[in-house]
Each structure stands twice: as C-alpha cells, then as structure tokens.
C-alpha cells in the first residue's frame, strides 16, 4: 500500500504488461536461439566455404541486428518501465533481492552488444576464424543473459526457500529454475529455427536453400522434444494451486494453456511433415504462418506463466495489489493505511460512491478495469448491494486467484455501493444512488 496506482483505462495494467512482455520475450528468445543458430550456421558456411550461405548470412545478420539490438534491447527496457509503473511494490522487492543478478546480466549485455556489432561490421573485413569467434561469443553471452534472467522470472512463481532464508542463491536457483531454463532454451532454439525457415527464401530455389531449410527444421524439432519434457517438468514443480489454475481452475488461463499446447503441436507436426521431410517444397507462406503460430505459442506460454501466479506477483509474498501476504485486514481501513488514498477515509470522501471508487483503485484496479479488460462492471451486473458486500468479504475463499479484502466494514460497504452504481443507468434512481 506504499505506491500509487497507474489507472490504465480499458487495457488495465496487467494486459499492458502482457503485451510488452510477450513482444519482448518473443524477440529476446529469438535473439538467444538466433545467436546459437547464427554461430552454427556461420561455422558450417565457413568450414565448407559455402558462398551462397555466407552471402545469405550476411544479409540475415543485418536483419538480426535490427530485430534483436533495436527492438529486443529497447523492449527489454520497456519491461522495466512497465512493471515499475504497474507493480512498483513488487519491482522494488525484486530489485532489492536481485540487483546483483541484473548487474551480472548487464555484463553479459555489454559483451553481447560488442560481439554482435563486431560480427555485423566484420563481414568481408576480418578473417573467418575471428568472425566465427564473434558469433560464438555473442551466442554464449546471449545464452547467459537467459541463464540469469530465467532465475528471476522463475522466482516470482516459485520463490522456494527464499521465503525463509532471504538468500539470493535460494531465490535465484528456485524450484522452477531448471525446467524454466530448459523450456526457454528450447523455445529460443525453436523460434530461431522458424525464423531461419522464413528467411531462407532469400536463397531462392536452390540446393543451398534446401540445406538451410533442413538445418533450421532440425532446430525446431530438437527444441520441441526438449520443450515438451521441460514443460511437463515445470508443471510438476509449480505450486499445486497454480497448477490447478492452469488445468481448469481459471478458465482464461486453462484455455490459453490449451491453445499453447495446440499451437506447439501444429508447429511440431507442420515442420516435421513439411520442411524436414520435403525441404524443397517449403513456401514462404508456410514459413510465415509457422512463425506467427510461434509468436502465438510464446504469447500463450507467457500468459499461462503470468496467469497461474495469481493472486500474487511474488508467490506467497506479495499480492498483485501490493499487499504483503503476511498482512491482516487493516482495522482502520485500507484508505487509512494506503499512502496514496485520494481521501484517506470514507468519511472524508465527498460521497460513498467516491469513497468506494478510491477503495476500488487501491484494492482491485491493479487487475480489474471498470469496463475494459477484466472489467468489473459486467462481472457485477445484477448483483445487489448486500450480495456484493458479502462477496467482497470472502474473495480469497470464493476464488483462489483473488487477494483478500483488506479494508474495514465501512470501506466494504462503500466498495459495494460503488460497484452497484456501475450498472445503474444515468437518470434512473437506484439503491446505490440513494445510499
């Protein structure tokens, strides 16, 4: 209850984070897998002195730099900016716990940027051995950024022993660290393979292209074998309540989980029976469709990972609305407790509805909008004041993915009044308006 809430209309903070995160994860995982793909492809091309591949890789590098160095890097900062705006409390906790982890990742960023720029500018300028060295340094540095950040992302769902010890190492190497690392590495390699399939069209209809298609499709197939195993492993180690949400406890999360599975299966079968079995017949349209499905699968997987964490931002530690897990309902009310309450108390507000709106902002608006994404207005349509009042008091018991209500009775009443007022048409009298 320390920080102000950024009221994002229609989208809501959660969806805004999801949009930025999915785009960034797609590009950054592509950058990690693409680094390994690039190093191996360069190695093969130089070793066999394959002029067609080398020419293709030169053009590919330009595009790779434009995607990873520009969009990947800036959207990475974008994640920082967005989580700081939407969940400042959790961001602050994460930074205090993992600042040296991020600093370590930063060192790898510096190496990564230097290596890819030298590789990019090194085409036709440096000897093949040096050029390949740049590619391998980039690939390794890029992979290690994943090794570091995976621990922090996994921590948010499975903080494990950290909850008792507060140790950096317990937080970083947490129960879902290794399955998460394997799954993300596999996803990275798969995305790189899909991207390779797509850009291979630049080689025209040639034997060199067929080899490239085969090479890229192997990336996808091997990656998917790892992805399937590590996803099951991940599912086994996450908290039971989170697993329940993914398996049907929360409809949107379960649906997205199903979609991710279906998208992954489409890619696996499509690449096996298409590019792998018949590389010469792979069209750019097919490759583009696979790449788009890859984006959807990445988005789905991230959605599930974020969704199963509800109602926490850091599991068993801090809720999405900034309330700590150990806190008990505030006897003097949430408006009194919250540093950023507009009115400070129900009595100080100009009306009960205004007070309820303030309580809504403090307790609910980090996940719910009024009328947009996860909008509360349709959710409470037809609810009477008394029914709403009753539901508010038992949110965490009725729905496992909602945090408990922390306010006092007066605030609960004000919130119920505000929620009831949302579905009252202008000009009509209602119980809420009368109240």
């Amino acid at each position, binding site marked *: *209850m*320390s*920080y*102000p809430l*950024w*009221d*994002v*209309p229609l989208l809501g903070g959660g969806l805004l984070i999801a949009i*930025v995160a999915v785009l960034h994860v797609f590009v950054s995982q592509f950058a990690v897998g693409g680094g390994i793909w690039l190093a191996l492809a360069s190695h093969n091309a130089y070793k066999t002195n394959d002029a067609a591949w080398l020419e293709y890789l030169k053009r590919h590098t*330009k595009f790779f730099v*434009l995607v990873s*160095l*520009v*969009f990947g*890097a*800036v959207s*990475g*900062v*974008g994640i*920082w*900016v967005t989580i*700081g*705006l939407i969940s*400042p409390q959790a*961001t*602050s*906790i994460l*930074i*205090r*716990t993992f*600042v*040296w*982890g*991020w*600093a*370590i990742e*930063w*060192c*790898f*960023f*510096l*190496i990564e940027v*230097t*290596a890819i*720029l030298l590789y990019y*500018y*090194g085409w036709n*300028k*440096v*000897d093949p051995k*040096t050029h390949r*060295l*740049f590619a391998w*340094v980039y690939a390794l540095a890029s992979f290690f950024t994943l090794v570091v950040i995976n621990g922090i992302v996994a921590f948010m769902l499975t903080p494990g022993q950290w909850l008792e010890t*507060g140790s*950096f190492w317990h937080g970083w190497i947490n129960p879902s660290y290794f399955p998460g690392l394997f799954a993300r590495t596999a996803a990275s390699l798969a995305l790189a393979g899909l991207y390779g399939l797509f850009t291979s069209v630049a080689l025209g209809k040639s034997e060199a292209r067929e080899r490239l298609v085969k090479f890229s499709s192997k990336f996808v197939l091997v990656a998917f074998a790892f992805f399937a195993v590590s996803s099951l492993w991940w599912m086994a180690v996450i908290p039971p309540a989170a697993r329940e949400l993914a398996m049907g406890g929360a409809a949107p999360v379960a649906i997205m989980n199903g979609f991710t599975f279906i998208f992954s299966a489409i890619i696996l079968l499509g690449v096996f029976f298409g590019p792998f079995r018949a590389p010469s017949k792979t069209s750019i349209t097919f490759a583009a469709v696979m790449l788009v499905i890859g984006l959807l699968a990445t988005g789905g997987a991230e959605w599930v990972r974020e969704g199963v964490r509800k109602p926490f931002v850091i599991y068993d530690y801090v809720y999405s609305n900034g309330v700590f897990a150990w806190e008990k309902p505030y006897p003097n009310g949430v408006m009194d407790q919250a*540093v*950023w309450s*507009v009115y400070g108390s129900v009595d100080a507000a100009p009306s009960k509805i205004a007070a309820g709106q303030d309580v809504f*902002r403090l307790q609910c608006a980090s996940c719910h909008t009024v009328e947009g994404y996860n909008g509360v207005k349709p959710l409470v349509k037809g609810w009477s004041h008394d029914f709403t009042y009753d539901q508010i008091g038992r949110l965490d018991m009725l729905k496992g993915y909602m945090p408990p209500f922390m306010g006092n009775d007066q605030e609960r009443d004000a919130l119920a009044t505000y929620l009831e007022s949302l579905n009252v048409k202008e000009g009509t009298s209602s119980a809420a308006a009368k109240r």
Partner: protein
Amino acid sequence: MPLPNAEPIGLPAPAWLLQFLLVLTFFLHIVPMSITLGGTVLATVFEIRARLQKSADFKALAYKLWRTLPSVTAYTITIGVAPLLFVQLIYGKFFYPASVITGWSWFAIIPVLIIAYYLLYLQSLGAKDAPWRTWAGLVAMVLFAGVAGIFVSTMSLSWEPETWKALYAESQAGLFFLVKLPRWLHVFFGATSMAGALVMLFGHLSKEDGFSRLARNCGLTWMTISLVVQAPASLWYLSTFNETARAAVNMPISIAAGALGAVGLVIAFLGWKGAARPLYGWAGLGSLVLSTGLLAVQRHLVRQAILAPHINAATDWKLSPQWDVFVVFALLLVTAIGLMGYLALRFMKSAAANQAGKMAESAD
C-alpha cells in the same frame, strides 16, 4: 507528503557503494547519450546544408555521423540499464511515484525510442541520396529531444515529492508531463557540444584534406555555440533551485567542470587550422567527457541534498548485504571489459591485415 513506507528487504550493499555505482554508470551512460542526441541534431543540420549547398563534403560529414550513431545508441541503451537499476534501488521511493504520475509520457519513451533508433538505422543503411533523408533526420531529432524531455520531466518530479499529492489527486491516469525548459536546455546543449567535439575528432582522424577542414570547422562552431548557450542555460537552471539545492552545489566541482569545457574549446581552437592532429581531437573530446563526469557528480550531490530530509537511513537504507554475489558481479565486469577490449583489438588487427592483403593484391 505521500512517501512510500520502508521496504521489508534491506539494500544488498551499503548506500555509498550503490551511489558510487549509480553515478559512475550514469556518467558512462550520458556520454554516448549526448553523442546520440547531439549527433542526430548535427547530422540532420549537415544533411540540410548538403542539400541546400549541394555540398559533397557536408554529405560525407552527415553520412559519417549517421554510420556512427546506431552503434553509439546501442551502448547508450545498454549502459543506461545500470543507472536505471541503481536509481530504483536507492531512490525507489521517489522514482516510482514520479514515474506513475507521469505514467503515459514515461511509458512513451519505449515506442519513441524504438522509432528514433530505427530511423538512425534507416539513415545508416539507406541510399545516400534518398529524398527522405532530411525528413527522417528531423523526425529522429525531435524524437530523441522528446526522450530527453521525458527523462527530465520524470526525474525532476522525483525530486519534488511535495508536489505529488496534488497532482495525483487531480488525476490518477498518469497524464502529467512537466516542462522543465532550463534543465532540458542544459542537457540539449551539453549534447550538441559533445557531438561537436566528436565531429572535430572525425576531422583530425581523416586523411582527406577537404573533409578534415570542414569537420574541424563544423566541430568548432558547434562546440562554441553550444557551450556559449549552455552556460546561461545552466545558470537559469541553477536559479530554479531552492535554497537546499543551491547550498548543495559544490563550487570547486562547478568551476572545474566549466574550466574543462573551456579547455576543450581552447584545444578545438588550437587544432582548428593547420594539419590534422588526432591528439587534439581526442583531447578536446576528453575534456568535455571529464566535464560531464564532474557534472554527474554535481547532479548527485544536489539530488542527495534535496531528498535527504525524506530519507530515513536506518529503515530505507538498512543493510542486507550480498557480498558473495557482488564479488561475482565485480569479477564478471572486469572480465567483460577485458573481453570487449580483446574482441575490439582482434577486429582491428584482422581488419588491418585484411586491408593490407587487399592493397597488396591490387598492387600486384
């Protein structure tokens, strides 16, 4: 005053160490940042002059900058991650509320930066005579200047906690953008002077006489104009300080920063005419870089003085050290710097050998 409560988790290192890292990495960030911002301005102006005067030398100068800027921007952004991290760690209770109040404009730095960065690559990779170059340059210039304005807005607000409550009560939708013209002018002309020094260096490093003279001329002009305008802009900025902030201004640091700027200008004058001398180019740029470093320290002293009354060191900065992880970071940083140096050296050696081989081939 709505100040966030102390965090339940302590700082992973003493505040002085984190402040040192904050100032150091901020300094390392603003040097390439100034070149990105100032360089975009100068390249656009050169592009316009090349078009109006049909000058191949201006075209070459603009192109040289456009080719340099994308890599500089890559380091600006990458290095910039570190001060953003440390400022949230030490001054999070000021930073987060300010960023929420300026929500949309603060969030806008991401799309704006992406567009501006792509425009730099467009200039770098696009056809040299394309008709859109001037317009693309102008848009990139406005966008980078806008990003600087947003940073100035949010960071300034993080130093003004007494204004938060009223602003937040007015709107919770993050619609505020604070126009802080004096501070922005201080940043903007600092950037163009740094870019001017870089252009000067290009002149000293070039072996083509016409290009070298033009670059040194333009570099000197931009350094002179920028530093002459920056001085009153800085004084104007200083005049907006309250008593506490003014008292925190360290005169020896200010005088040394100003003197280093003047030294840079004198070096630029000395190297303006006659043969190109790379040492002059490096010394001119170096002086401005050092001056920027001192200003980064000055900025920190002022911020600390302004915010100190709102910081309870015993609770806000209580210590939960992670020395083992810090040692890993420190060792890795040294390794990273060494590796980057090695890779750059290897590039230069291999490129030189390759060039020599090509020359030998053409001689045959």
